[in-house]
Structures are given as C-alpha cells and as structure tokens.
C-alpha cells in the first residue's frame, strides 16, 4: 500500500547559513530499509520542487535509524536575507511528511497516526 512518510517517520529541520538540514527518523527499525530505498536524495530534492536550489546530500545514521538530508540553498540566501516568513525554515521539515512510499500491506498495525486524507492532512 501507498502511505505518506508521516506514518513511517518523524522529522526536524535546523538551519546553518543558507543550508537547511532536514532529519528523518524512522518510527521503527523495520522502516529504515524502506526509507533507504525509496527516499533517496534525488527524490527528496525533487519533492521540494525548486524550494531547494542547491545540492542535497543524504547521510545515513544507522545507530538511530535516521537519515540527515543536508539541503543547500534552501533558506533564501540565509536566515537574515530570507524573504520567506519562516526565515529559519523551522517548518520546512513538515513538507516531506507528505512524500509517498510503498510499504507491505501487512504493516498497517505498525504505522503511526491516523490515516491522512486530502481535507485534513
């Protein structure tokens, strides 16, 4: 079945200069290989659809079942220059929660949160 990332992982973003790091943490170790295979740096960048202007590097942090996506050019030139309302990009980490992945049908009981729908994410 196809599910949004928010059912498999939680995320947090931080800023340094014009770079945002968006870390993705699998809720279960079981989910980690699925994230590794499907949530590649290329797809991650493509999902942000131009909001990340530079390269995206994905670091694996296997000891905590996490990936750190370091996204250059995601903060409008840096916190003080950024014309966006969220200068620090602290809300950037929520966009990727809408990324869709294929997971085994029998994972239903392991997935987190309510089933999302279009009206209420």
């Amino acid at each position, binding site marked *: 079945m196809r599910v949004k990332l928010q059912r498999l992982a939680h995320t947090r973003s931080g800023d340094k200069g014009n770079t945002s790091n968006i870390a993705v943490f699998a809720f279960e170790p079981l989910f980690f290989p699925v994230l590794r295979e499907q949530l590649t740096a290329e797809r991650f960048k493509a999902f942000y659809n131009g909001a990340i202007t530079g390269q995206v590097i994905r670091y694996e942090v296997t000891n905590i079942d996490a990936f750190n996506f370091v996204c250059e050019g995601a903060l409008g030139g840096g916190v003080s220059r950024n014309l*966006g309302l969220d200068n620090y990009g602290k809300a950037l980490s929520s966009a990727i929660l809408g990324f869709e992945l294929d997971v085994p049908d029998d994972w239903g009981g392991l997935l987190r949160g309510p089933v999302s729908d279009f009206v209420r994410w």
Partner: protein
Amino acid sequence: MKQSIRIGTGSGWWGDRISPAAELAKHGQLDYLCFETMAEATISAAQVRARRDTNFAGYDTYLEDRLTAVLPACLANGTKIISNQGWINPDAAAAKAIEILRQLGATGIKVAAVNGSLITERVLGLTDTILENGQPTQTLADTLISAEVYLGAEPIVRALAHGADIVFTGRVADPSLFLAPVMHAFGWDPLDHNRLAQGSAVGHLLECGAQVTGGYFVDPGFKDIERPWDLGFPIAEVYQDGSCVITKLAGTGGCVTLQTVKEQMLYEVHDPAHYLTPDVTVDFTTAKIELVGPDRVRVSGVSGKPRSPTLKVSMGCQEGFVGEDMFFYAGPGALRRAEIAKTVLLERFKIVDLQSDDLRIDFLGLNAIHGLATPSDAPEPYEVAVRVAARTRTRAQAEKVGREVDGMAVSGIAHTGKRVPFQDRVREVIGIWSSLVARDAVQATVTISES
C-alpha cells in the same frame, strides 16, 4: 572528585521562557546552569544597535530578568552559572551581575568575563576566503559590521579554575558552554578528543533548551506529550567517562524520550560523523541511546576526532533592507481575489520603479511557508493573507513595499482586509559570512571581579 555532575539549561535562545530556568535553579540540584542566548546575527545586530543607542549596554536584553529569576536559588544551592549573555560586552554583563548580587546581599561571589572573540578590526588580515562563495574576505571591507571568532570551552574552563561562580562570554560555540563545566569538574585533557566529543554531545543536546524535552516536537496523533504548555528545561547528569542521562524535573510537562533525543542529536548538524566545534570533531554515528527510566535517556559511545587547527569566524555585513507587509482575503473566492491583488501589486511595483534584488508575493494559508514545495493539489484555503517582501539596496526602495500595500486599502480589490501599520515595515539585512582563522591568532582573556 565527584562521580557525576548535573547541568541544566537556563535558556536555549534569546527569547526563551524564563520561569523554567527559575524552576531548575530551585529544584534541579544543579552544579551548573548554562544560558545560550545568541543566534548567528546577534552580535552584528548588537553592534548596529550600540552605534545608534548609547544607552544599550551590549549584553542580553533579558540579562537582568534572567539573573533575578535564578540567582537567589543558585546562590542557596551552590549552582554556578555559565552564560553567553555577554554578547559584545561581557565586562558590562559581569558588572551588572555584581550590582544585582550586591542588591541581594551576596558578597564574595566571583564573576568572570571572557573576552577575545571580537576581531572586527583585524579579521581581514587574518582570513583569506569566504567559505560560502570562495571570494576573498577583503570583498567585505566596505560593509563589515562585526567579526567574531567562535571560541571553545578552554577560556571558560580557565575561569572556573580561578574559582569563578558566574561566567559571561561573548561568542562561544554553543556546545562549549556546556562542555566547559564537564572538563573542569573531571579534569579532562583538552586534547582527549573522545571524552570531549561526549561532553560536546551533552552540550549539543542541551543547547536548545526544551527542544530535547518535548519542544518543537508535538504532532497530534503522531507524537503527543503531556502538558505541552509547561515544558521543563533539560538536565544532564554527566559521568566521568562522558556518558550522560538526559532528563528533566519531575512534575513538569513534556518528555524526554528516544525520539526527542534523536531529533535534537541531528538538529543543525550536517555530516553526523564530523560535527565541528572549536574543541573537537564529534561523531554522532557511534552514539548509543537507551531509555533507562521515565523521562531518562542515557547517551553514551559518542566518539571524537582531533579538533581542527582553525577556528570559525563569523562576519556580519550591511547588505541593504527588506520591506514587507501583508493584507487579507476570506470567504468564497478568497484565493481569486488574492491572485488579482498580486497582479495589481506587480504592476504597481513597475509603475513606482521598485528596484529589488529579490521579491516574493506569497499567499499565507497556501504557499507562504513551503513556497515551491507546496503540492500543486493543496486545497484552497478559506482565508488567505497576501504577504509581500522585497530585498533592496536602500531604505527608500524598501519603504515602497509598505506604501503600495497601503494603496490596496481603498484602491485595491473587493473585500480587502487591512491592518493599520503597527510595526516598522522595513528591516535592515545583516548578511552573515564565514571564514577560518588560525587558532593561535586568537587569545581569549579572562577577567574576574568579586561582589
């Protein structure tokens, strides 16, 4: 020597809440309470303010509030304070603290000021290349406001070794504020990179306050916590081997879980195996984290590599202005009206010849936060704010943004909601650039006074 020490966070940024720090001071049984109050542009903004406002003392604007809230309990409990609230004037921060201590009747308390981070006058001679764009730092000569080196834990350790009860610094790397008391308490060698890495990890986990105890965390239905309005600030129990337990005061809201610790471990980190601080290069990929009790997470196994021969220097420069404002639509057709309003503004900006390096007109409620990453099938909002921002070279150009939004009041689109301008709609841009400076070019000094 103690087997372990207890360190608490008094603030994770300049605007942080004050009462959780007071609670920690009273009930945390702390050896040290550490305050982090600076962002990247704090020093430069303080320099600009100091030039204009001769009454500005140059330290954290909440210094008095914070000290008044925690000092009585810290004095009673023997808790030492380490703080980067000194900003551009650690000496003045120390003097203020002594004044407050005397008002409280506390005599013989030693207050240290750590100076040496500010190198504005000589930075261009000490540095070569701007890290962000590869240009010579000399290109910043005309616009430079301030340059400050990120100092490490060492000068704070020196202050503690001289008996300081309270230490004020200017720019110090955030984790170093917390590493310093651990190094001092356990007599660590400043080149023992594995131990320093563990101590720096403690600092990294504590430096943003409640971000490790349930702040910046709640997502209903996915990540729920108790009483998110009453988060306790974190405490680390740190052991001689550098391992620690992250916890918080019993009875406070929030939580310390594997999830909160993991999220904070990677916060503002790039390569998790090479997190650079002035003291050591930290490798988080060897860390082991375990839940060892309610709101108790043990962190061990963080490893390190020797510190780099250079220190990072941050340079703040004048880069012009941003003008911004917003206005509102609601009800059926709100987005259509917002779209035509955007067209009107873009035409108006041509008519008034707005000269900008960057311009954004967003629909808050639809795409102002995620911008281009907003899904194309996102639902239409019932209410929408049209939010306009332009970056310009001059203040006069930036003022055009607010003046054209004013025009939308009676010359705009049907059902335009407007607010009376209640704030300055122009702000200065202080651009931040980085470079590297040789470690031995920077000598920190420690001055100690007594109340």
